[in-house]
């Protein structure tokens, strides 16, 4: 028993010794004092930036942002100033960028998808109340403009006004307007009163927020209206048509006596369903998602748009790949003369910015004045972009033009990477060229190219540039009753829902984005699983 204890103790000592030695070696290997200084300097910069960001977010009361920055900054310090955590030291920068650029964006989109954020619901309830009350101030028709001097007495501001008939009166938030005598006059305007300090323009501007809020009742009855000033030098008589009852949380229209209450739909709503705008943004749960699948006016187009999106992405990948592969094989043949020259020519469309290319094509395909109809088809008025099916073909055609150089490059590279010996060996074994290609080269090519085909599919699935520059999703069917055209793909439809027209619905658009995201993710996962089978070939 006691001998095992001593043995244990010895072993522990040996382990400790080894560990100390390991730490020493590690320290030497890490470069000593210089790297330490660099490390401290870098962390100092990061900490300084984080600190600044913390102050800014605190000032703007963005507590979520504040917490996130705090956590990230703290983790960075802990990771780099403690021993160990070696994997974390390497992963941390990448993780931070992943958090900022992907996790945050996805999270935010998801959050928006569960709200009614959009036109008329783009802020908080508090903002809506302020905006409603602000715009409910009605200047009494034909009421005169009063000359105004703002007076200050121990921090309380009062209005000293001169009516057009020369009457001088005074009042403030607490005291309604009453006539005063003995005001200091200048050119028919009262400019001062003993016991008060008259504010000059600069001091008015200094306290403009408080002064702009002052409403001096013109009489004891609040319904008679109040004097307010928009500029600090003249006052006008306003009546408010909306009154906010903070305790009950209701808005009352004093002209019609309609009471608008918060019924949980993100706007003050009257009993007859009439809403006051602006409203505010609220969480609506899964409403946007159910809307996408159940509302007839959206569901109909959604189905046809989804089908076209898949067809477009698949056909685009297929056509560009086949043409690119064909050309790559042709230009990979040693017997071909002037290959370099042709290769450069082939890559030209790739060097041209895609959305410009699409714009140019839109001009070329104009029914009356386009080059294609005018010159190639001898003045025939073929509605390339205005007939639904021709527009779809045009889009595939233009995308082929834009996309084949990429496939050409990829296939050329992949073909050249296949060892020449394989072909030779096969030839020696008596294989025909097509058999060599089909049985040896093509499978090997697919190993390299398949992942790129999948990412190309994902890219085309969201190829907004092309669609928008070429047809803007059109041609639209005027009878459809919704702003979705024959060539709209999902992403351009989302864009139209969110950003076109007077009423934007960011919530619905985010819900669509998430649906698209899920679709693309599922396809990618399945495809990548499938391509793993190809890797066994290698």
């Amino acid at each position: 028993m006691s001998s095992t204890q001593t043995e244990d103790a010895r072993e522990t000592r040996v382990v400790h010794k080894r560990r100390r030695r390991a730490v020493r070696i590690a320290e030497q290997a890490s470069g000593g004092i210089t790297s330490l200084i660099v490390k401290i300097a870098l962390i100092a910069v990061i900490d300084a930036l984080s600190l600044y960001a913390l102050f800014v977010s605190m000032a703007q009361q963005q507590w979520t942002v504040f917490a996130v920055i705090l956590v990230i900054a703290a983790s960075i310090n802990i990771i780099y100033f403690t021993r160990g955590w070696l994997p974390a030291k390497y992963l941390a920068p990448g993780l931070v960028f992943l958090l900022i650029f992907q996790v945050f964006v996805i999270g935010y989109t998801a959050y928006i998808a569960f709200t009614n954020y959009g036109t008329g619901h783009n802020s908080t309830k508090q903002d809506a109340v302020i905006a409603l009350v602000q715009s409910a101030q009605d200047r009494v028709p034909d009421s005169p403009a009063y000359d105004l001097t703002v007076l200050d007495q121990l921090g309380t501001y009062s209005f000293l006004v001169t009516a057009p008939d020369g009457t001088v009166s005074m009042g403030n938030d607490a005291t309604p307007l009453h006539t005063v005598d003995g005001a200091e006059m200048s050119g028919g305007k009262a400019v001062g009163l003993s016991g008060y300090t008259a504010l000059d323009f600069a001091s008015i501007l200094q306290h403009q927020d408080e002064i702009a809020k002052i409403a001096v009742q013109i009489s004891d009855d609040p319904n008679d209206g109040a004097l307010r000033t928009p500029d600090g030098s003249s006052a006008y008589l306003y009546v408010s048509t909306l009154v906010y009852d903070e305790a009950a949380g209701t808005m009352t229209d004093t002209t019609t006596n309609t009471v608008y209450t918060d019924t949980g739909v993100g706007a003050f709503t009257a009993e007859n369903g009439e809403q006051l705008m602006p409203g505010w943004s609220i969480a609506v749960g899964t409403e946007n998602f159910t809307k996408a699948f159940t509302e007839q006016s959206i569901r109909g187009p959604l189905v046809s748009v989804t089908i076209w999106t898949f067809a477009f992405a698949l056909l685009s990948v297929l056509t560009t790949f086949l043409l690119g592969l064909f050309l790559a094989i042709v230009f990979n043949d040693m017997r071909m003369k002037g290959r370099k020259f042709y290769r450069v020519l082939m890559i030209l469309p790739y060097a041209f910015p895609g959305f410009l290319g699409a714009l140019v094509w839109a001009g070329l395909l104009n029914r009356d004045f386009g080059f294609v109809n005018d010159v190639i088809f001898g003045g025939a008025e073929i509605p390339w972009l205005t007939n639904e099916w021709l527009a779809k073909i045009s889009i595939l055609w233009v995308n082929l033009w834009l996309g084949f150089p990429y496939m050409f490059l990829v296939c050329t590279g992949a073909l050249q990477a296949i060892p020449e010996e394989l072909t030779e060996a096969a030839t020696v074994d008596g294989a025909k060229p097509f058999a060599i290609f089909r049985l040896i080269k093509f499978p090997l090519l697919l190993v390299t190219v398949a992942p790129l085909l999948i990412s190309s599919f994902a890219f085309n699935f969201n190829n907004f540039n092309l669609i928008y520059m070429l047809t803007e999703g059109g041609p639209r069917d005027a009878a459809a009753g919704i702003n979705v055209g024959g060539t709209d793909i999902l992403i351009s439809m989302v864009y139209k829902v969110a950003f076109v027209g007077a009423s934007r619905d960011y919530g619905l658009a985010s819900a669509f984005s998430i649906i698209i995201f899920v679709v693309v993710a599922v396809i990618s996962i399945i495809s990548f699983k499938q391509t793993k089978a190809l890797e066994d070939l290698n």
Partner: protein
Amino acid sequence: MRVKTNPILAIGAMTAVAALALTGCSAGGGDEGSKKEGSTTLTVWVDADRAPVLKDVAAAFTKESGIAVKLVQKDFGKIQEEFVQQVPTGKGPDITIGAHDWLGNFVTNGVVQPIELGDIAGDFQDVAVTAMSYEGKTYGLPYSTENIALLRNTELAPEAPSTYDEMVQMGTDAGTEFPFLVQVGEESDPYHLYPFQTSFGAPVFGTKDDGSYDSEQLLLGNDGGIDFANWLAEQGKAGLLKTTVDGDIAKEKFVSGDSPFLITGPWNVAPAQDAGIDVAVDAIPSAGGEAAQPFVGVQGFFVSAKSKNALAANEFLTNYIGTKDVQVELYNVGKRPPALTAAFEEVSSDPTTAAFGEVGAAGVPMPNIPEMGSVWQFWGVTEADIINGKGDPAELWTTMTSDIRSAIEG
């Protein structure tokens, strides 16, 4: 292996799009937002053309009031979107430049506050003040008006036509490729065709007593509207209106002398003159018998609902931007008729400006109510279908009207 990193790339590309769409707008104005309560810097959003003029005005204002003015240059086309996005977050400016037909959107989103023109309201053109008003309150200080008119190549057509038929006749006699030109485009251009529509007595909306538009009265689909639809079909059949003629082509053909007439705005006057064409500006001839009223667009400045500098903003607008000198200077950079009557009179020595102003004075403000968005959505495509002869014009027009009505009612 590469295979394994690729889904992340794909997701990354997608989320980047989403990121741009959803957060890009709020990221745009980082620094101008960090205003503190009571700080005395007035932030003004302005487009590139107007910025140099405002720079001098701002300097004068700063000198007199001690308030710094920070001009932030923005792409005009993006201001509406960014303003609506940023004001609620407290990042927006105190004042922004803008067009009057954004107003409905602004008010619905609660991002602007009314301003008090006070006694100077009468110094502006009526159409400009009406345009800047929403539900009876004035929200903006107008500085210019803009509308389309008929440009005439005096060499090809020495006289101004008084009716549409006369114009077509004169154009045919001139023997050019097109008797007259107006931009239509694949989804049509209701803005440029609107004068013809009003000449049939079919405005989009009726008006309330105070002159503001009433979304309850959709007059688009009245008998005049049907007449207009039939007329459109006829013109399309005759090849006088073509959906293939878009803005660029119309301008191009007029500038190269292929037509004596072009219905367009002041922006196309200079290119035509540069090409050596002697341009006259006339009223748009009536096609349906009544006056052909174009839409008038008014540009001006709005004050943010969240501005902590409301008094300074009002002071800056009414007493600086609203003065004759500044309005004349703003005219000099854009050549749009000033909204202030005195300034307009001063620049009327330029015949083009005077003529555009005159046509505009007889025009109607473009509706600034948000319901207008539902109209645009259906208006153009239906017109294009009618011009292209896709179905019975009256039927298409009636369908459009009911679609718009149901879109407005939501």
